[in-house]
């Protein structure tokens, strides 16, 4: 089959690789009909997340048709089912899965991969599709076919009257943005500030409104992304090239600060703030793993007793976090890979009832063969390119 494979920094190719096969009884094989490039794939593209090996198949936002089901998953799935596949892999039987903390699954990261995760993170989180050897080495979804483990837990059937593009983002970015907003525990009258108006940020904005936020402030520096943020429901947008973010936030909240701050940017912040320039220099010589400018700003901007919610991806040991502010302002810090399965019925209902149309963020549709071009475009022009959807032919 054809699949998008990683070969090094800014080097991804569509190669012919072996078709996946059923390995374990609870596996199934999906024939991919639509898949997307995620903003977090750019971290892999940039080589800032460790433990990819050349030839790894990327992609964790994918959906398609079930073409083969192992004996252990037949009670839930059958050939021909049309499903979206959550990017977090979960066994369904461990302590965490029982409590719907799916992205913390104890078992889906294979035993030999957990060593590295334990060394770097303390404990191993769940395995992910197409997202490094440390998180399982599972072949990803930017491919014609994918092997899906624990197929009786993850794959979620979607109704035929909804198009691929309407449901594809249930795999990751919609639930991720939703969980980021849910983590803010939004109360009547709340102001939520969202840094980063990529797909996760946009869904966080939209979800914050769904969950009752009165004011949602979107922060980015790309005019077209800020325009989309307004479409998604942001009441105010801030271009940090034009205004000082903390001054503007203080003004918009009359000195209180936003009740909740969402960092939907993560480890590769843009911008020419002094701290970010220093991080860029340190990152170049491998003295730091992340550029957490946004996290710092969100912590400092957040109102006392407020919540900082971090759906953005961070890789390692993050430098110079103003922890004193977390202590002295009694902030709540919440994060996590997304417990995708927990949100699917609710979010599908929002789509079916027409309250949310996720297709608004798609800017580019490419053939899977053109995936490397998709990565290049996405990396180069984030003002124009918001979401690239790939289709295998």
């Amino acid at each position: 089959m054809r699949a998008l494979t990683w070969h090094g920094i800014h080097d991804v190719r569509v190669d012919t690789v072996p078709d996946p096969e059923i390995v374990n009884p609870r596996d199934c094989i999906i024939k991919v009909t639509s898949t997307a490039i995620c903003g977090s794939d750019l971290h892999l593209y940039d080589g800032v997340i460790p433990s990819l090996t050349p030839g790894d198949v990327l992609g964790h936002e994918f959906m398609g048709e079930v073409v083969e089901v192992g004996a252990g998953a037949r009670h839930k799935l059958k050939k021909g089912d049309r499903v979206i596949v959550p990017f977090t892999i979960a066994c369904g039987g461990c302590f965490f899965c029982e409590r719907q903390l799916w992205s913390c699954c104890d078992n889906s990261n294979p035993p030999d991969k957990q060593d590295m995760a334990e060394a770097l993170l303390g404990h191993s989180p769940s395995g992910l599709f197409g997202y490094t050897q440390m998180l399982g080495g599972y072949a990803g979804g930017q491919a014609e076919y994918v092997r899906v483990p624990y197929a009786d837990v993850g794959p979620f059937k979607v109704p035929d009257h909804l198009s691929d593009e309407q449901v594809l983002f249930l795999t990751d970015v919609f639930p991720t943005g939703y969980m980021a907003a849910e983590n803010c525990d939004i109360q009547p009258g709340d102001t939520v500030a969202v840094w980063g108006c990529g797909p996760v940020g946009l869904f966080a904005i939209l979800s914050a409104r769904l969950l009752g936020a009165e004011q949602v402030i979107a922060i980015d520096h790309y005019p077209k992304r800020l325009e989309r943020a307004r479409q998604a429901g942001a009441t105010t947008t801030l271009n940090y090239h034009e205004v000082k973010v903390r001054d503007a936030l203080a003004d918009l909240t009359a000195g209180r600060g936003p009740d909740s701050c969402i960092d939907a940017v993560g480890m590769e912040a843009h911008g020419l703030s002094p701290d970010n320039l220093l991080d860029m220099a340190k990152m170049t010589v491998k003295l730091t793993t992340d550029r957490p400018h946004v996290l710092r700003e969100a912590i400092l901007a957040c109102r006392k007793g407020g919540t900082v919610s971090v759906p953005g991806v961070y890789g390692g040991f993050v430098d110079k976090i103003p922890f004193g502010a977390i202590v002295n302002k009694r902030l709540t810090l919440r994060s996590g890979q997304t417990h995708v399965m927990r949100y699917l019925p609710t979010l599908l209902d929002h789509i079916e009832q027409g309250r949310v149309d996720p297709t608004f963020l798609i800017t580019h549709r490419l053939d899977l063969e053109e995936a490397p071009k998709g990565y290049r475009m996405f990396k180069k022009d984030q003002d124009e390119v918001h979401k690239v959807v790939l289709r295998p032919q």
Partner: protein
Amino acid sequence: MTDAALRSTLLAEIPPDSRANTFLQTANVHGPERWLSLAGGVGLAAIGGARRDVAGAALALAGAGLVLRGLSGHCPIKHAVSGRDASPRRRAAKAQGWSSAALVHRAVTVNKPRAEVYAAWRDFSNLARWMENIERIDIVDDRTSHWVVKAPLGRTVEWDAFVTEDVEGERIAWETAPDADVHSAGWVEFRDGPTGRGTEVRARFAYKPPAGQVGRLVAKVFQREPHVQARRDLRRFKSWLEAGEIPVGHVPAQPATPEDLRL
């Protein structure tokens, strides 16, 4: 060799090997001695550094050694003179009558009732399903099994193992026969976790490294070292019970067939 009960007592005193390997565990310089060592070392190094001759270099070197001793809290000389027999590994070796011993300790929580977890382990015909690197295990009788295990460089090692203690639902202890390729003795314990936390499984064993401590390091490089193996095998045991199968992430790439390449 001591009897099983005595050996159990001895092994019970042994702290987890992971701790035994760190400076923390082998710290033998404490309190004022440590601070004096540090301060004296800095002083010596400064005096030595100021003198531009051989004696100065020697003083500086001695100072650096004292600084290191102060920083790490570990003195190799003191250890060699007084601490040898106190080392857990040495105690285990002595108890077993081996020339050297390595210790493995690892615990895992399994989200299943204790009776089920114990039964899954006690049925030795299951072991090869979740233990890696097992070529085969022949069940001789209820207490005896014959093991053929993969070793580095494509070799295998074999031994007979005897159950020396079996307390239903709680504990299984074993030791290997005197003619084993690799000698080991140890046990696995099963306890109820706190409410809703399943069963706590603790495995602890001592083994005689086939080629001494150097061989142990070589085996580690090949990831066939028992410590690495125990860690992974316990995870596999847990997965097998909780998920009914052992996860496989990266499927080693087979070379594409000509048919694949035609696509």
